[in-house]
């Protein structure tokens, strides 16, 4: 097999070591921060939940751009389009299901069961 030329794909040249190092660094930062906050119970429960979710989203964004190279393709940007579509579908399914199931749970659970679940600290 003859030696391949350095680029068979125009997209390739853009990969840089710095993007991976930055991505890795940011991910470590977000992961350990979230972990320390929870382990030490550093704030009220609601604030912690919010922060942890925000950190997750930040890490998600950084890994999408820095590891998965989202949006760095040539035009037309089909990968980005499909990714956005996927996010929309995921948000609808997850939050739609949560809304529906929460509503159903509230309305379709008999009072005795609610009392029992409350006593078990599970509701």
């Amino acid at each position, binding site marked *: 097999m003859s030696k391949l030329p350095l680029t068979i*794909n125009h997209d390739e040249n853009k990969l840089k070591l710095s993007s991976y190092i930055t991505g890795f660094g940011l991910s470590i930062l977000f992961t350990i921060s979230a972990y320390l906050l929870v382990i030490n119970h550093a704030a009220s429960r609601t604030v912690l939940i919010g922060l942890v979710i925000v950190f997750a989203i930040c890490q*998600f964004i950084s890994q999408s751009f820095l590891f998965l190279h989202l949006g760095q393709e040539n035009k037309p940007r089909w990968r980005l389009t499909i990714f956005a579509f996927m996010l929309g579908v995921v948000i609808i399914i997850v939050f739609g299901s949560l809304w529906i199931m929460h509503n159903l749970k509230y309305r379709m659970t008999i009072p005795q069961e609610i009392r029992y679940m409350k006593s078990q600290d599970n509701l």
Partner: protein
Amino acid sequence: MEPIIAIPSAKSLKRQEKEEKNNKMLFGFWVYIMTDCVLFASLFATYAVLHNNVYNGPGGAQIFKLPYVLGETLLLLTSSFSCGLATISLQNRSKRKVISYFILTFILGLGFIVMELNEFHNLVLAHESWRRSGFLSAYFTLVGTHGLHVIVGLIWMAVMITRVSISGLTNNIVRRLKMLAIFWHFLDVIWIFIFTIVYLLGALHL
């Protein structure tokens, strides 16, 4: 009709055709990854709905050991980074470095799986398996599906490392390694959400 005269092998595809073929295959793989995201979203939705259905059994706060999970997370994260280093070596067409970095990625990924299997094993031994409650069913299935994907990735990686050692960095192999890298990074992205939603929020009694 007379038999068709054809050349039985197309190894000599022109460069532009190769590029187009690589391009569309990488794109098709990306579309598959998007479908896998929806698959995990459905599992997350199921977990979110069932995670308080503990049926008098243990909840997340009782069974999750956060320091241990942090260890798993760091292993997987580092393996995603070393996969990135492998991708850079791939760009530079350095066969030796590609193999080394993928072996490193493999070892870290394997470490992650061993830790996870250990976690599952301990739970099963304590009679807190997927049969115990809706919560545990959802937990084992969500985390287990991710783990299965990692195992598939490890098998793929082992096959590719062997291939590269034997045949070097051919066009097909380079393309497949790129797909493997996308797959591996995607698995770490999913883990971010598992770590946060299952473990961290579970520890917060959500």
